[in-house]
């Protein structure tokens, strides 16, 4: 049962990735300009344009260019960037690692925080803590991501306190793990701009659970409230919570670009914007397909986790 579901989902995922790669390839060629214009600007002579076009292989038919790229994707030869001397795997590899570190740190902080605040808010439903929390999450979700980034810089780096570095200028010669001080400020900004959503989801899920019959029964049995919350309510609310956090992680994968830009954090989102600006087709395609693949995997893992956390679904699957 689970095997066939996995196979079905994976096959569907692959088909989607292929469609996305075609769509991206078509879209970027619809945009005006190409890597040659981007590199040469406008002073160059027609001979310079021609020689560079040949040099980059952009004189080949589009279908040939696409087939070369997709073949390379499977054989592990991702080719070279059109505008810089680096290979696509070098660029994407290091940028992916940086973004992964930032996202993981943000999720590690955000997950427990959202579950804690959301649960407490549900328990204190309608009382002071819940009201303050409602207002704060509403305000936070109303502030655009870049403004939150600027505020974090203002408070923690430049004007009020001087605790954190203002810009995450990670030294590419060293591992990002040795420069975690540069990840803290963008992590705070990412958490602040993303957290309203999971808090609200957790709160809603918990309110639902707390109003159910089995919680009433547990309370009537005379179980201590702590036990009711931790053993009964939280465990039953786990399904929606996992979904909420998985969705947040999906948002983070795409939405972290704003934070990356504000902090000059050398992540994959920033790289993608640069690559689109320069019409660096192989870099754009590789990044988009990788991000889409990550989304497919997160979705699949989240569904599995939900299934395993929900007894009814679990028995159905196994």
């Amino acid at each position: 049962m689970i095997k066939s579901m996995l196979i079905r989902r994976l096959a569907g995922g692959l088909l989607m990735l292929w469609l996305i790669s075609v769509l991206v390839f078509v879209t970027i060629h619809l945009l005006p300009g190409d890597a040659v214009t981007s590199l040469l600007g406008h002073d160059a002579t027609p001979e310079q344009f021609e020689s560079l076009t040949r040099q980059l292989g952009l004189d080949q038919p589009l279908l040939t260019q696409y087939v070369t790229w997709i073949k390379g994707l499977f054989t592990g030869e991702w080719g070279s960037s059109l505008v810089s001397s680096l290979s696509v795997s070098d660029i994407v590899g290091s940028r992916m690692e940086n973004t992964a570190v930032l996202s993981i740190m943000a999720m590690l902080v955000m997950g427990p925080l959202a579950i804690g605040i959301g649960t407490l808010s549900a328990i204190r439903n309608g009382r002071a803590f819940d009201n303050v929390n409602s207002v704060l999450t509403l305000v936070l979700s109303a502030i655009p991501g870049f403004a939150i980034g600027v505020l974090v810089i203002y408070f923690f780096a430049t004007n009020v306190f001087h605790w954190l570095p203002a810009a995450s200028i990670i030294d590419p010669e060293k591992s990002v793990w040795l420069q975690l001080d540069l990840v803290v400020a963008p992590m705070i900004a990412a958490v602040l701009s993303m957290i309203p959503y999971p808090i609200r989801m957790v709160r809603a899920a918990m309110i639902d659970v707390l109003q159910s019959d089995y919680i009433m029964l547990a309370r009537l049995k005379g179980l201590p409230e702590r036990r009711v919350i931790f053993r009964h309510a939280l465990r039953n609310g786990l399904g929606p919570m996992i979904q909420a956090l998985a969705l947040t992680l999906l948002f983070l994968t795409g939405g972290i670009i704003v934070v990356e830009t504000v902090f000059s954090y050398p992540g994959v989102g920033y790289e993608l914007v640069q690559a689109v600006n320069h019409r660096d087709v192989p870099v754009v395609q590789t990044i988009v397909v990788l991000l889409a693949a990550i989304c497919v995997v997160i979705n699949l893992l989240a569904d599995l986790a939900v299934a395993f956390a929900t007894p009814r679904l679990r028995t159905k699957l196994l």
Partner: protein
Amino acid sequence: MAPPLSRRSFLAGGTGAIGLAALAACGTSTPDSSSNPSPSGPPKRGGTLRVGSIGGTKDTLDAHFSSTDMDQQRSQNLYDSLMYLSSELPYHLEFALAESIELNADATVATVRLRQGVEFHHGKTLTADDLIFTVRRILNPDNYGRAKTALAAVNPNDLKKIDDRTVQFNLITPDSMFPKRWGSATTSILPTDYDPANPVGTGPFKYKSFTPGARSVFVRNPNYWLEGQPYLDEVHIITFADNTSRTAALLAGQVDAIDGVDPTVLAQIGSSSKFETMITKSGFYQPITMRVDLAPFNDVRVRQAFRLMVDRPAMVKQAYSGYAEIANDMPNPADPAYPTLPQRVQDIDQAKSLLKAAGLEGMTVTLTTTPENGGLVNSAQVFAQQAAAAGVTVKIENLSPTAYDAKFKDWPFTNGYWAASVIGLSYSGRFLKGGGANDSHWDDPAGDAIYRDLLKTTDPALQKELGGKLFQRFYEMGPDIVHTFKNNLDVYSKNLTGFTPFNSNGWSLGAWRYRLVSFK
């Protein structure tokens, strides 16, 4: 945003109009060694300079393929060319790797003699072979270097090695500007065994590491040919995605200097006593360009009317926050040939009557612009407001840089940005028929003839006279509304000294000559 594509590299590659006499006069002086501004004794040695620049992955260390300002910045510190563009006015060059450059009377044969005893970073001595290698590398038809247009008169197959330090260039066409073509990083002299993966030059700093879109680390070249320089131990050039983050990094002390900043940044830095602001006043300009091969701007009356609509003092204030100088519809004010002509001022009545005569009262036109360089979109908007007074409706079309560049020469009415230069160098690209950057489709056989005469003469007085005639033509009927010359703004830590405004062409941070910079 994308880093600005540098039209500047091209213009610097095709430099200015001073005669050979002037070159010979400054020939024996060592560039900048005497003019180092340090009031309190000799500059201190040591320290690491960290510069924050706006850029992206479109970075290269290969001088011949420099395209962005950041590339120029790096190349200025790793390499040298035959000449240095002086920071001072009037626009002129000083000898760098060349000891002398001699032209025959009709500017058809150039003889370059190289400085003795200059060493590349890997220990090889500079010889005539390196110069020949460099020229052939730039003019390689399989992969032309960016300076191809600047060296258009050079035949790579007609270079004669006279001796170990001397090369004779037999030019395809006369080129009295030949010595001034060597002031840009895109003409840097590279050794015959040049390897782009491990770049070697003769510059004040040596390559240590480089990651496109992130940072470049250079270390002091102890064998630099200018005695005593450079003073710094290391230079780190750090790439930033956007200005907010870069300014924050300066305020937080993560970088020591930022270049080419927007006037709004000055407000953010405010009264901080930790920073110095450097204003570079040059002929850097953002003209509004009219395509003369299409209606309505093929009518000179319409072009003159549009020039009369601009309120230049208001433009300085509103579009550039006061950081600009009033211009007079001609480029290159640092050119010795720049003439003194009556300052054009706003005259709405005259503009209206010219438009009426052309039958275009109350016309509507679209001005295509791009945020590629700070001030472009602002000045386009201010112009649109000012034109309304003459009953002209100007619609603004604001495009992303790559979309704009893709059709750069197609826009009928647009504004661009150009470095300061001299007319002998900038004419071929922007005004000569078929010029690579001739966005106005300017086609003036009489002007082209004057320009060709200019390239034929090595007499400074005659060059000045001919250049003056070209300027006069622009003033009377040219394709550009040159309303202002934009200032360049840099901000750096007060602990630093040695930056001088690069007034000759308006580049940033003393044109990135970090060999002159030291900590106090």
